[in-house]
């Protein structure tokens, strides 16, 4: 059964308020070399689908899920990896 790993990131143009606070905390700990922190999401989807499903078929499903629910295209980008 294939597993899909999805990584969701905020669009680069948007302020990542959480990332900014983590960056400040790293600086306070002495890690002044960190120039930016961006926080995203990581999801693992276990796909119970027939083993003969084509790669294109899996891609189409994953893209649809990402665009309908898993991400908000207004503020987020995504990438994914299918592991057979």
């Amino acid at each position, binding site marked *: 059964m294939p597993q899909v790993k999805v990584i969701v990131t905020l669009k680069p143009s948007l*302020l990542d*308020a*959480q990332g900014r606070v983590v960056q400040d905390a790293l600086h306070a700990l002495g890690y002044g070399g960190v120039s930016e922190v961006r926080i995203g999401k990581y999801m693992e989807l276990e796909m119970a689908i027939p083993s003969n499903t084509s790669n294109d078929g899996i891609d189409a499903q994953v893209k649809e899920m990402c665009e309908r*629910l*898993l991400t908000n295209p*207004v*503020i987020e980008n995504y990438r994914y990896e299918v592991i057979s």
Partner: protein
Amino acid sequence: MSLSTTLEPSTSATIGSSSGPKFGVVRFPGSNCDQDAFYAIRDVFKKPVEYLWHGDTDLRGCDIIVLPGGFSYGDYLRTGAVARFAPIMERVVEHANRGKFVIGICNGFQVLCEAHLLPGALMRNAYLKFLCKYVTLRVENSGTPFTSEYKTGQLLQLPIAHGEGRYVCDEATLERLNRTGQVLFRYTDRNGLTTSDGNPNGSLDGIAGIANETFNVMGLMPHPERACEKILGSADGRGIFASMIAAAVRATK
């Protein structure tokens, strides 16, 4: 939140005056301002109102749909992201597409953005804190069904209570919102100026509330339903409900 659970009606039957437009307040799991909205409509405006369950697929003849504040579905994944797919939302989208009125308050605004009934999105407040306080808003366009009882430029005191209220959208959308008067409310300082001090959550251009292109769907982060009586600190939110009621009455004539 209501102070007392005695305001909870014992049935889902329509309560309030039999005349005038009927409101439907949607309840998602995690909604927590549904009773406040219900109370304002029934007790302050004396209009018929009933709760609509998220799992239902019938708007029960309601003219104005209210998506209340709260943390629908725990706000998991993103605020409003799961609520947007509740069965009742298909009917709400149809209602909006027929030109009927829909208002989303706080979490309801987030749901409307996720449902693509309003453009843009709401992100984590710029300064991370959950904000629960009164803010000053400026009415930007009084020529809409949601704001006709106000004057353009009028300043309002309304409470906010949110952790994710920073409005964002792309540049083209922002330009369109400003050009077409879809920005209905902006955060300002006490003098009515759009300063960074007056912008509690870092919203783009100080945007606190917007309407869709056809001005029948509106979302805002502040809570007008909590500001309909002087004894609660402000009655400045009344104009939004009064405007919608007047507009719905006009629409049926």
